[in-house]
């Protein structure tokens, strides 16, 4: 009797679960199935966007074109007269052969994506689509730093807002302002703040405090582009993290803290022993969605760096809209998809969130 009722209950639960999932999956099938399937399929073709050109199935060609890299050593240039290694007169450094003489051209042209030195030898990494290889790198660096700082700042903001003080309600609204500013517009606003003349905020301030000369160009200086973009994104999305963490904090029962207080545990111990472990599941979800958004980052790159430096998604955009290589663009989409999937699983496993 007892077992049959519990198995009945289990069956009922299963039935209910399916019923509850129907609406979500119905939407998924109607809205997402075709576009997603189409992206996968197109990634194996050479389809051109808005073109009457016949589309052919090309297998993994797009993926090969995007991901093929090769590493070649750059031999030092030998001075013909002296027979010794040529040395640059100005800098006094050894001159190496230019990548164009070293990288393969047939059957495909490899272009240099970056160079590095290792034990005094110089190497070049060539790629068939160096812009994409760089875009992947840019996106990963961007994701790592922005998600890290957003989580950190988000946690601080959430903890502060969670404590008792006057004007807490107003603070909760203030906290969300950056997230509420329309993304496209906020990118424009920051771009204007980074303007390479003293009409821009940072050059004006830097000049006033004697740090820089007032015509510093943040967005066309290769070493400052990523930090600038990361700063913008951290400002914009810290509220997202903070609010999710705040909600997570609310779900921690107060009794736990009371018990700890009775035991005489310090605030810091309470944080590490209670808050952090119990926050893990909400943190995991927040991290997944932040990482997912960061890996697909588009607006800030598109507005502020445009074609100077790509993220994976902005490279994708230009492949589709200006190059009209729909097959290639779809392959990029699939690669982004796979990277995001890997991150999602990694988070779930490493933060010990049980899905079953």
């Amino acid at each position, binding site marked *: 009797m007892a077992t049959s009722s519990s198995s009945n209950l289990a069956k009922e639960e299963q039935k209910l679960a399916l019923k509850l999932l129907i609406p979500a999956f119905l939407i998924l099938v109607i809205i997402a199935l075709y576009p997603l399937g189409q992206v996968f399929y197109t990634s194996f073709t050479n389809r*051109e966007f808005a073109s009457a050109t016949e589309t052919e199935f090309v297998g993994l060609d797009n993926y090969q074109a995007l991901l093929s890299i090769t590493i070649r050593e750059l031999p030092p240039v030998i001075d013909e007269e002296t027979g010794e290694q040529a040395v640059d007169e100005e800098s006094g450094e050894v001159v190496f052969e230019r990548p164009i003489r070293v990288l393969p051209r047939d059957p495909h042209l490899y*272009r240099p994506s970056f160079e590095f030195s290792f034990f005094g030898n110089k190497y070049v990494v060539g790629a068939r689509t160096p812009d994409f290889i760089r875009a992947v790198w840019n996106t990963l660096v961007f994701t790592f730093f922005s998600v890290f700082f957003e989580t950190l700042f988000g946690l601080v903001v959430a903890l502060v807002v969670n404590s008792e003080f006057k004007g807490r309600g107003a603070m909760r609204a203030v906290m969300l302002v950056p997230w509420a500013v329309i993304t496209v517009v906020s990118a424009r606003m920051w771009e204007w703040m980074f303007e*390479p*003349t003293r009409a821009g905020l940072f050059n004006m301030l830097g000049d006033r405090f004697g740090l820089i000369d007032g015509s510093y*160009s943040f967005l066309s200086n290769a070493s400052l582009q990523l930090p600038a973009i990361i700063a913008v994104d951290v400002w914009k999305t810290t509220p997202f993290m903070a609010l999710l963490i705040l909600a997570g904090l609310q779900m921690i029962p107060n009794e736990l803290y009371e018990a700890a207080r009775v035991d005489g545990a310090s605030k810091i111990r309470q944080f590490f022993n209670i808050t952090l472990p119990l926050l893990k599941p909400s943190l995991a979800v927040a991290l997944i969605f932040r990482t997912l958004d960061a890996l697909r980052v588009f607006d800030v790159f598109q507005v502020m760096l445009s074609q100077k430096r790509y993220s994976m998604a902005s490279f994708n955009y230009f492949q589709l*809209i*200006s190059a*009209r290589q729909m097959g290639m663009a779809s392959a990029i989409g699939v690669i982004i998809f796979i990277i995001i999937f890997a991150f999602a699983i990694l988070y779930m496993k490493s933060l010990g969130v049980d899905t079953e």
Partner: protein
Amino acid sequence: MRKNLVLVIALVFVIAFSGIVLAQEEEISLTVAGGAVGQEKELTEKAAEMYMEDNPNVTVEVLETPDLANDRLGLYLQFLEAESPEVDVYQVDVIWPGDLGEHFIDFYDYGAEEVVDKHFQAIVENNTTTDGRLVSMPWFTDAGLLYYRTDLLEKYDREVPETWDELEETARYIMEEERAAGNEDFYGYVWQGDAYEGLTCDALEWIYSNGGGKIVSTDQEITINNEKAIEIIDQAAGWVGDISPTGVTGMGEEDARAMFEAGNALFMRNWPYAYALASQEDKPTAGNFDVSPLPAGDSGSSAATLGGWNLSVSKYSEHPEAAAKLAMFLAGEEVQKMRAVEGSFNPTIRSLYEDEDVLEAVPFFGSLYDVFTSAVARPSTQTAPQYNQVSELFFQAVHSVLTGESDAQSAIEYLELDLMDTTGFETGEPTQP
């Protein structure tokens, strides 16, 4: 006799029916996708009204599209991919006719033969695909100009520069003097150095004016890898951080205009639109500047890149004939004159540059007639449908030289290889008049 009777009756029938058909002319509704910019849209709507007055059976609607060229192109591609009949007439950038040509009708099929000679030769050539179809009617044109501060040239007793070397020399001298006089934000020359289509325009002007050809020649040869081109790109790279701010490698039209209008630049390369804006009363430049052709390089003559917009009719339109008629009306003399007088849009019809009303409204049209007629088209038609990729490779290469990431020679060598890879064309020597 009977036969004749049948014939007569048949004839009567035909006439009667065609009469009915004529009387009940089909109601046609056409949509023009065009610019959203305030005045531009108003003038397009006004032109549409003019057309509807003459053709009461046609309703013309103007659909505003985003001002950002990439957004607009993305939208058009979406329509064309879906073969959408929603838009009949597209306003297309001067670099698009080649790329999008397969979706547009040939105006020669609709009697463009008669009017085409009135328009600028260069634009008509640009709008004609390699297989000889005229897919776009010229609507208004644009060309790069040199803006200069009349007050400062006068103050330091200098002439308007006619060569790049002169520009460099004058800019450096006045910049040093002005800085010594206390304006620490002052620079000699601002232009469009960001990695985008605008840099393609600027760099093409340098190269062409120096006798270095136009990247890909009209007969589909890649001509970019030549001494003249490398030399002038090197020279331009030398401006960065000298007469131009280092930040110029991140500047577009609007950034350059902001600097010039704040009184912080002696020279500026920009399109004609900045003329009216820099003349606004509350700005330091008002009354203190003028425009001239851009300086020349070794070729001895100046070059201005061709800009502007054209009108194309979609193949997927339900009424291609009516749409073609409308497009030709909009691109015709009457409308172009109205737009020139009321909105300073540069006509593409030669005779309008001698028209008194036009010259009264926009005086510099007359003095810069040569600049507009001899503007150099970007190689968009000969590289179609890959122009955007070609342009991107080109401006990326030039940009890497400007920022010092790469030297001009390597960048151009790679560019040549890349262009061969992308287009499949052979290399050749630049030929220039």
